[in-house]
C-alpha cells in the first residue's frame, strides 16, 4: 500500500487510472454498467471495496469506498486530495471522531466511519452525468 509510484489520479482522471488502483490494492476488478455511467469495482480479499464511477466520456467523476481499512486516499483522490487534507486540518475543534464533509461547487468529499467500517465518497458535481443521482454514488 505504499504510495511511492507516480500514478494518474483516479477522481478526475480517466478510466486507465483504475488499473493503477487495482494493482496497488491487489484487488480484483468488476465492471457494472448503467445507462449513464459505468462502475468499476475493486475489492480486496479482506473486504476493502473501492468503486470508481466512469462517465460515457471516460472521466472518473466519482469514487466511493467502504471496508475495514480506508484505501489510500492520496492515490484515489489524486489532485483533489490537497483540498481534502486542508479541510481535515481546518476542522475546529479537532477531534477523534469527526466525520468530514467538504462541499464545494465542483467537489464534494465525505469521509467517516469507525473501526471495522470506514466509508466515504468523493464526486465532481459538475461532471455528474445527466440522469445520475448522488444517491447512486455509494
Amino acid at each position, binding site marked *: *500500500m*505504499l*504510495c*511511492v509510484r507516480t500514478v494518474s489520479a483516479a477522481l478526475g482522471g480517466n478510466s486507465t487510472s483504475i488499473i493503477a488502483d487495482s494493482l496497488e490494492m*491487489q484487488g480484483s476488478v468488476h465492471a457494472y454498467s448503467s445507462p449513464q455511467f459505468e462502475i468499476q469495482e475493486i475489492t*480486496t*480479499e*479482506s*473486504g*476493502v471495496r473501492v468503486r470508481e464511477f466512469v462517465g460515457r466520456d471516460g472521466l472518473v467523476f466519482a469514487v466511493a469506498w467502504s471496508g*475495514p*481499512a*480506508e484505501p*489510500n*486516499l*492520496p492515490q484515489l483522490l489524486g489532485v483533489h486530495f490537497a483540498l*481534502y*487534507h486542508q479541510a*481535515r*486540518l481546518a*476542522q*475546529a*475543534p*479537532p*477531534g*477523534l*471522531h*469527526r*466525520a*468530514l*464533509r467538504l462541499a464545494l461547487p465542483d467537489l464534494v468529499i*465525505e*469521509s*467517516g*466511519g*469507525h*473501526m*471495522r*467500517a*470506514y*466509508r*466515504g*465518497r468523493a464526486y465532481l458535481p459538475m461532471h455528474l452525468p445527466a440522469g445520475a443521482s*448522488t*444517491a447512486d454514488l*455509494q
Partner: protein
Amino acid sequence: MQIRFKFALLSFSAPALLAACFGNNNAATAPSAPSPVLNTMAVMVDSGPAAATGQINHAYVTVKVCSPGSQTLCAYIDHVLLDTGSWGLRLVGSVLAANGIALNAEHDAQNQTIEECVTFGGGQTWGPVALADISMAGEVAAGVPVQIMDDSAAGAPPPATCGANGTLINDVSGFGANGVLGIGVFAQDCGAACVAAATPLPIYFGCGGAGVCTAENVALAAQVTNPIAMFAADNNGVIINLPNPQNANGDATLSGEITFGIATQADNALPLTGLTLLAADANGEFSATYNGGTTALPALLDSATDSYAFDDPSIAVCTAGDFIGYYCPVVSPQSLFAVNTGAGANGAVSTVQFAVADPNALVVGASALMNLGGGGGSTSFTWGMPFFYGRKIFIGIDQRSGGGFTGPYYAY
C-alpha cells in the same frame, strides 16, 4: 482546572470506600456467597485534561493502569475518553511516562515489535501494542493488549500509509484526552479481518530494529482488546447512565456513571418494560432513517462523537465562531426525528425525537451541551453524546449473553 481535578480524585475514592464497607458486611452476614464486585464508577463530562481544555461533550473516566502482574507499578490515568464507537484502550505515551508507567511492546514471531495504525474519524493514531493490567471500580482485567500512542516518537516511526489520509493524532491535544477507552460492542478492535488476510490490512505492523514496519496479521488474543471483555466477571457489556444538562446552553460539568456487566448483578438488570434493544451487525451498526427519508443509513451510538452527526443540506451550517461546520439552525432549536431499526432478525424499530440548536449561545466555560448537531456526511447516522444525556444505555458485547440477550447490541 485544579479544583476539578481534586473533585475527580474524590469521586473516585468514595466508591472504593463503599466497596470496603459492603465487602465487610457481606462477609459477616453471608459467608458462603461471593461478594459482588464493585462494578460502578464515575463518568465526568468536563472541559478536558489540563493540556487540552475547552472540550465539548467529552465523557471521561479514570482508569488504573499497572505493569503486568505488579501491585505497585500502577497509576490512575484521568481524563480517558469513554468511547462506545471503538474497541480497546489507547493511552498517550507521554502521559504514561509522566505517571512513571513503562509498558513493554508486544513482539511477533519474528521478534519485531507489534505496532498499530488506527483510523478514527478525525485522523490516525500510531504506536506499539503492550500488555497492561487494567482496573476500573472493583473490576480487574489482567494482561490486556493496549495501544500506546507514541506522541514522543520513542519507537518506530509510522509507515508512509499511517497518517497519509489525513493527520496523525497521537498527543493529548489531538485526542482532547489522555487516552481513549473503547467499550463498544466488540472485544477486539480489528477482529477477523486482521487475523489471516493474504495481504494484511495496513492496521497492525511488525517493526524491525531498523524502524522499518510492515503490515502483518495478528491473532485475536494479541489484538488491542476492550478491557471489559477481559474482566473475570461482569464482562458481557456496560451500562452508561448520564443525566441531562440542566442548562439548554451548556453545563460546566456533568457527572454520571458507568456500570460493568449486564444482568450479572442486582444493580445491572435489564428493565422489564420500555426497553428498546437494537441488534448490531458485523460492523457494530444498526440502521436509521432520518426525518421520514427512505434511505436506511448505517448507524451507531457513539459516545466519542460530540454531536448528532448526519447530513441535512436544509439546515444552516455555522460559518463563524467555535463551531464551524456544525448546525446553526435559523429557528433554534429545530425538532427532528429518526427511526432506528435493529440489524438482521432482531428488526426492533424505535422512533427517536431529537433537536439541534445553534451552539454559539454556549455558556462560557460549558462542556456538556445538548442539541449539538454536526455534518456527518450522507453515508451514515451517528447518535453522538447528546443522545446519551438523560438516558440509560446498554452496550452488549459480541457473543456475550446476559438477561436473555446476546451481543452485539445497543439498548436504551
